[in-house]
């Protein structure tokens, strides 16, 4: 019973407690060690002493004392008498919840900005965020990113060393720097979500577990910074895509494109919540790339069937998105929207221009989009050739299976 309660408390409260501890001792490693020790202590004490009224407060209080212990031990200060190390022994039940709130203000926002500091590599930012803000273990992060556990462990150690040695502050950036820094945070969350959405690994094309973590983290950022429409826009974007998680893969592991998805399997309640978030963001009249992408996803979510999709409005939104992020990938998406809104040949000509400019030469979705549009335009041979180019570039098995089947169907027609 106690271990299960503890596991639940750790899962739910760890980020909050850890953030408070880092705020106290300014050292992520030390805070982690102290928290771990407090959990061990809880396992020893709770079964006989009973469950404290506020387990999180209990853990924080004990861990904070442990922090002091460890700091004293490190400094080997001669003034500390021997035996002073065992302060963890006399344990009181911990403060009442109200006291706890007053004594340990929510420091998670600081932790977010430290984990997602632009001086850290994006992969390190993601690993730190999953470890410290989501409470995933190193092993869980390694499995999520399909890499050996020592690789993840080393990445975390390096990042923590850099935080300490380079003096990366544990602070919410000043108001004038906040927008730029928040951009880094959102970019990290977006990257994490993309990783959950279309992973290159075998049979892990969809990883709703990572998607849930990305959603949880973005919710936290929005909760802590409610007046930033791009944060809320990203939350809507992630939630809208996440709501389609059960319709994106067939029973035999083949990707299902948006058009062919069983829309009754979309999580409607989640979509409604996401649409409300998007409306709230857009009402602030400070548009940005995440809000626009969410608006595009919203138009897809609102269409009761694929044929009812408002492609004209989607094409217009892509034109706006291109003003913010004029990247080749966005151009490719805009070209596809243009094809459905204004005629297949318009879209195909745009993609041809992209290809001629040498953009996206290794990106399988360019020939895949060409193949789809050419097939619809009745240009069978050109479509088959485009499928072959896409098949030569695609890596994820779920997408490979899809493209193979589409090509075979066209070839047999």
């Amino acid at each position: 019973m106690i271990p299960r309660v503890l596991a639940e408390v750790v899962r739910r409260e760890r980020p909050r407690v850890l953030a408070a501890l880092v705020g106290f001792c300014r050292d992520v490693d030390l805070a982690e060690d102290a928290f771990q020790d407090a959990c061990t202590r809880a396992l020893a004490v709770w079964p006989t002493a009973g469950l404290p009224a506020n387990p999180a407060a209990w853990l924080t209080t004990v861990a904070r004392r442990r922090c002091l212990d460890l700091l004293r031990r490190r400094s080997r200060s001669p003034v500390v008498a021997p035996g002073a190390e065992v302060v963890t022994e006399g344990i009181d039940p911990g403060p009442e919840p109200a006291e706890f709130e007053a004594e340990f203000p929510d420091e998670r926002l600081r932790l977010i900005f430290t984990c997602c500091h632009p001086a850290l590599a994006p992969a390190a930012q993601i690993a730190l965020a999953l470890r410290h803000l989501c409470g995933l273990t190193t092993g869980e992060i390694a499995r999520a990113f399909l890499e050996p556990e020592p690789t993840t462990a080393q990445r975390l150690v390096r990042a923590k060393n850099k935080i300490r040695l380079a003096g990366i502050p544990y602070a919410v950036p000043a108001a004038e720097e906040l927008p730029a820094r928040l951009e880094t945070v959102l970019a990290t969350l977006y990257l994490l979500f993309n990783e959950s959405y279309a992973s290159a690994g075998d049979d892990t094309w969809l990883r709703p577990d990572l998607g849930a973590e990305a959603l949880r983290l973005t919710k936290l950022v929005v909760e802590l910074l409610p007046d930033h429409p791009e944060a809320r826009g990203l939350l809507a974007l992630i939630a809208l895509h996440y709501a389609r998680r059960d319709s994106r893969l067939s029973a035999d592991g083949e990707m299902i494109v948006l058009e062919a998805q069983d829309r009754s399997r979309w999580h409607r309640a989640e979509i409604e919540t996401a649409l409300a978030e998007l409306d709230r963001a857009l009402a602030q009249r400070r548009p940005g790339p995440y809000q626009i992408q969410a608006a595009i996803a919203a138009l897809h979510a609102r269409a009761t069937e694929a044929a009812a999709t408002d492609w004209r409005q989607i094409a217009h939104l892509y034109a706006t998105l291109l003003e913010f992020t004029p990247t080749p990938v966005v151009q490719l998406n805009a070209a596809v929207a243009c094809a459905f809104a204004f005629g297949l040949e318009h879209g195909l000509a745009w993609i041809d221009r992209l290809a001629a400019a040498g953009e996206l030469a290794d990106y399988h979705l360019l020939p895949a989009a060409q193949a789809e549009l050419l097939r619809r335009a009745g240009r069978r041979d050109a479509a088959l050739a485009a499928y072959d180019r896409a098949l030569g570039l695609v890596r994820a098995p779920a997408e490979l299976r899809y493209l193979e089947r589409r090509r075979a169907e066209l070839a047999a027609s």
Partner: protein
Amino acid sequence: MHYMILIYSNEAEWAKIPPADLPAVFEKWMGYGQALQAAGVFRAGSQLQPVATATTLRFQGGKVLSTDGPFAETKEQLGGYYLIDTPDLDSALKWAGQCPGLFNGCAIEVRPLVPGDQPESPV
């Protein structure tokens, strides 16, 4: 904390600045140095002579050997540095982000110093 602001640039590109523009360039660097001083973060700083003036020593075969030139031939060379004292990396990056070289094609590397005996404020 003490941070080195290391300024890397392509010397060949610098040599191409028209002489008429040099006073304006010089003024910008002067202004930057003065701003660092006024904020009390400046500890040291200097432009370096070109790498052609460098001499590199190595200990090989029991002897100290000196060779003409920098330790490595690179497209960009260390051209100067500032040593500043700021509370954390963010404030150091903020100062580094105002370095005039940044807007003339230089790459600016910011490195923390190992804590120890660093020069104190000259004041």
